[in-house]
């Protein structure tokens, strides 16, 4: 009997060994800066055929608090995750946002290599195939239009996975910028209840000859059914955003799109649009994610 007790202790010790082994050697080289209360998970999608990392931030005591938390899903994780995590912590500490779980969807290698990052996001975030005009873009043509598959991956795999590992409530938020904002707009139109809150920053509505306008029209009747689900959408764009090559300022495009949505009111859908003064396409996100989260989440009850 005692032998087995000892055996159990030894095996436990071995299982714990990696932590212990780090100790004496850790000071030789400086540790990288790790965000507290975060975890990295990996997933593969048979739907998109790609590998993903989930960068997850939790409230400190999520395992013992006995609460369920809203979950905020973010695209373009290498840029959005650490930034949003700090903004959220800042406001949670000040009781201006509820405690929440953040899940940012990253591509392995996307942090080091711009090409990997660009190829993956274009494949996953764009809703349709856009014929390309020049030979040098021909490679890109092969890998786009995957938004339906990516949406299914989020709905069928990511959300259930997060729910299985964390105390996640059904209060889900989407955050996306640029192509990520286009993807969010596409989800809002095609599977509106996947998220309760949407922060859509500088969406690429120009994509593929403004195909999103056709999607808006096609889905209008379905969207206007009263599902008795309240949702909040925050759109943001920088006042300096223009896209000369398609001949239309993104600001006007978004305003027009917003008016179209407003003209077909959806029961339970509350929308706002904020134009950020003097921001451009690459500078707007830090301001917009801050304003966006404060806009879509009501302040916590104190």
């Amino acid at each position, binding site marked *: 009997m005692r032998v087995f007790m000892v055996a159990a202790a030894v095996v*436990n010790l071995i299982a714990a060994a990696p932590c212990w082994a780090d100790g004496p050697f850790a000071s030789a080289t*400086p540790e990288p800066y790790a965000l507290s209360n*975060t975890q990295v998970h990996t997933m593969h999608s048979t739907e998109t055929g790609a590998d993903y990392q989930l960068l997850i931030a939790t409230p400190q005591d999520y395992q013992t608090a006995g609460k369920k938390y809203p979950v905020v899903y973010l695209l373009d994780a290498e840029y959005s995750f650490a930034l949003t995590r700090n903004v959220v*912590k*800042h406001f949670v500490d000040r009781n201006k946002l509820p405690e929440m779980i953040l899940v940012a969807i990253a591509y392995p290698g996307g942090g080091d290599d711009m090409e990997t990052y660009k190829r993956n996001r274009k494949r996953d975030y764009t809703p349709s195939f856009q014929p390309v005009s020049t030979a040098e873009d021909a490679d890109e043509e092969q890998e786009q239009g995957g938004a339906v598959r990516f949406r299914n991956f989020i709905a069928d795999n990511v959300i259930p996975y997060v729910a299985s590992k964390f105390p996640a409530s059904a209060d889900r938020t989407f955050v996306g910028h640029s192509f990520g904002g286009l993807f969010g707009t596409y989800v809002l139109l095609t599977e509106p209840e996947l998220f309760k809150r949407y922060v859509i920053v500088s969406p690429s509505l120009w994509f593929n000859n403004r195909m999103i306008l056709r999607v808006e029209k096609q889905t209008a009747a379905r969207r206007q059914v009263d599902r008795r689900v309240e949702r909040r959408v925050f759109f943001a764009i920088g006042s300096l955003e223009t896209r000369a090559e398609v001949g239309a300022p993104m600001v006007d495009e978004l305003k027009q799109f917003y008016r179209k949505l407003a003209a077909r009111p959806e029961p339970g859908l509350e929308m706002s649009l904020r134009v950020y003064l003097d921001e451009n396409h690459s500078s707007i996100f830090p301001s917009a994610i801050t304003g966006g989260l404060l806009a879509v989440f009501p302040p916590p009850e104190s």
Partner: protein
Amino acid sequence: MRRIILLVLTVIVSIVVRAPLAAAKPYAIPNTQEQHIRSKFTGAGYRLFISLPDGYSTSGKSYPVVYMLDADYSFALVRNVVQHFVERQDLPPLILVAIAYPGAASSREVYRMNRTRDYTPVYAPDGGYGAEYQKVSGGAARFRAFFARELTPYIERRYRASPSDRTIIGHSYGGLFATYVLLTEPELFRRYIAVSPSLWYANRIALTMADDTADTMIKPGTRAFFAVGALENSNMIDDLNELVRKLRRRDPARLQMSQQIFEKERHNSVFPGAVTRGLLTVFAPSTD
């Protein structure tokens, strides 16, 4: 026998249960490191969060260094903003150094006590977080000495950091500290980003100090960016306007001033947008 099987099962389960815990690593920001330093001037220990540019280990180049206060909030945020703009060639590659207090991320008291001690220029019996915290106030001269004589030499010895191109970023009390350094030892940094500085502090002592800053103390090419949210208390905006008016009287060849009032932003929401604009402004190619 059954007890033995049960025990073996317990062992197996304990291994299996342990596995996912070990697998879920925290998210470490690429190309960062953490160091520790103790200051003789302030008597305190500091954690340094450091971010190095991509390709640092092989480039052989020297880089400008951006120092920032309130590290637990600023570091990861600014690092991602900088990375975003460096990739798009809108900012030069930079070394980032954020100064944190051990324990401050999880304790509001530790955070408040430390920043009150280090960031405020004089002792004041009340204001800020209240009398209890103000007891330790007034340590900015010592904290400035830590920067000048301990921290910047440490960074410039250990990393390929350009001594002639240092930036400081501070918000609120941290913005007050950055302003204080600009007014008292301006050559310490080349670029200053002060967001919502607490100019009300100690009967607006920073505004008084601004009258005493001699032009000759300021190195030619110094740049400063000040920001405040349009929805902050009106005295925050008025005080900043007054400071900026005073500083615009300095020789513009020595001190290039920018000011921005961010519409619809409050004291606690202005920083992400302001630091983004601030970095782009103070590192913008010179117009002359």
